[in-house]
């Protein structure tokens, strides 16, 4: 025999009893749970920023020199791309909440396109760096050979590839869950009245944007002072 349905009963503040239809619509719980997950992300990236700050304090000049060699134009374009993707994701959620499901789907697709553009630009950047001999595992980032970069630069680029790589991985995950969201919308599981999944995925995307807001200046901008006379490179 299969499980017999036993209705759960909960009591409200006035003492009236109600049959529980399901806990899936607990919007507050869904939101809270997702924020807890996001705070674990803050802890993870926080620890990485701590390591980065520590290395920076030990090797300031090397960090500034290494930062100056990054492609600020591509990094800047990516910053703007992410900014617009946060807008399209937010507008998609707004459209969903106001009943425009088609518009919401369109906005999610726009976000996916922008996210892909971010990855493609990042790919160009990494390829150019690889071609210049700067990549994890290449001689320039290994100590003790004729091509070795100064030690602080090796640490800088190690952190740069690790952190932008981990951030890029979050972008890939983001694209995956957005495609999943589109599937759920198509299946009628996410609707204007029941949009917590859409809400949380939009939050995730904002977090990915938020991390970049600090990754970008940390890696790309600290060595940008050549004109203004911060500590000069060689």
């Amino acid at each position, binding site marked *: 025999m299969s499980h017999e349905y036993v209705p759960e009963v909960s009591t409200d503040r006035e003492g009236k009893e109600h049959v529980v239809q399901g806990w899936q619509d607990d919007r507050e719980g869904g939101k809270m749970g997702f924020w807890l997950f996001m705070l674990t992300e803050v802890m993870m990236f926080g620890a990485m920023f701590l390591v980065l700050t520590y290395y920076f304090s030990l090797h300031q000049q090397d960090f500034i020199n290494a930062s100056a060699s990054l492609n600020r134009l591509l990094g800047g374009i990516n910053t703007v791309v992410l900014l617009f993707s946060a807008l399209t994701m937010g507008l998609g959620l707004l459209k969903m909440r106001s009943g425009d499901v088609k518009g919401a789907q369109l906005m999610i697709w726009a976000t996916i396109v922008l996210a892909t553009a971010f990855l493609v630009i990042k790919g160009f950047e990494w390829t150019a760096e690889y071609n210049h001999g700067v990549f994890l595992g290449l001689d320039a980032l290994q100590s003790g050979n004729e091509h070795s970069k100064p030690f602080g630069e090796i640490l800088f680029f190690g952190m740069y590839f690790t952190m932008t790589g981990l951030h890029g991985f979050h972008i890939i995950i983001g694209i995956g869950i957005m495609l999943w969201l589109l599937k759920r919308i198509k299946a009628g599981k996410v609707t*204007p009245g029941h949009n917590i999944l859409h809400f949380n995925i939009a939050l995730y995307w904002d977090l990915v944007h938020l991390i970049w807001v600090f990754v970008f200046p*940390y890696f790309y901008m600290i060595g940008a002072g*050549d004109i203004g006379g911060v500590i000069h490179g060689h």
Partner: protein
Amino acid sequence: MDTNVNYKAEYAGYWKVLVALLIFTAITFIQPGMFLTDYTFVTQIAIGAIKAWIILMYYMHLKGEKLIIAFIYFSLFLVTFFFIVVGIDVANFQYQDVSHITSQVK
């Protein structure tokens, strides 16, 4: 349908936030050549913090959320605490000669 939606106002809000974030991004770009040039690092992180606050409050809908904001303060406190503890440790570092991260191993 969500009955609490004021579509026009929220739509305009999203665009206003975008403009604000674009302005701060532009400031990020011109700062190293224009102002506070001796303090690029600190200034950049400060601009990032302002952008982060705008994103949290408006794009991540934290305005009016008391409990989640308390969560965030707590996690920021923990991160800051680790920064301070490590900072004290680094300030009193005694192993330069044998460390593998302070200089190149000969």
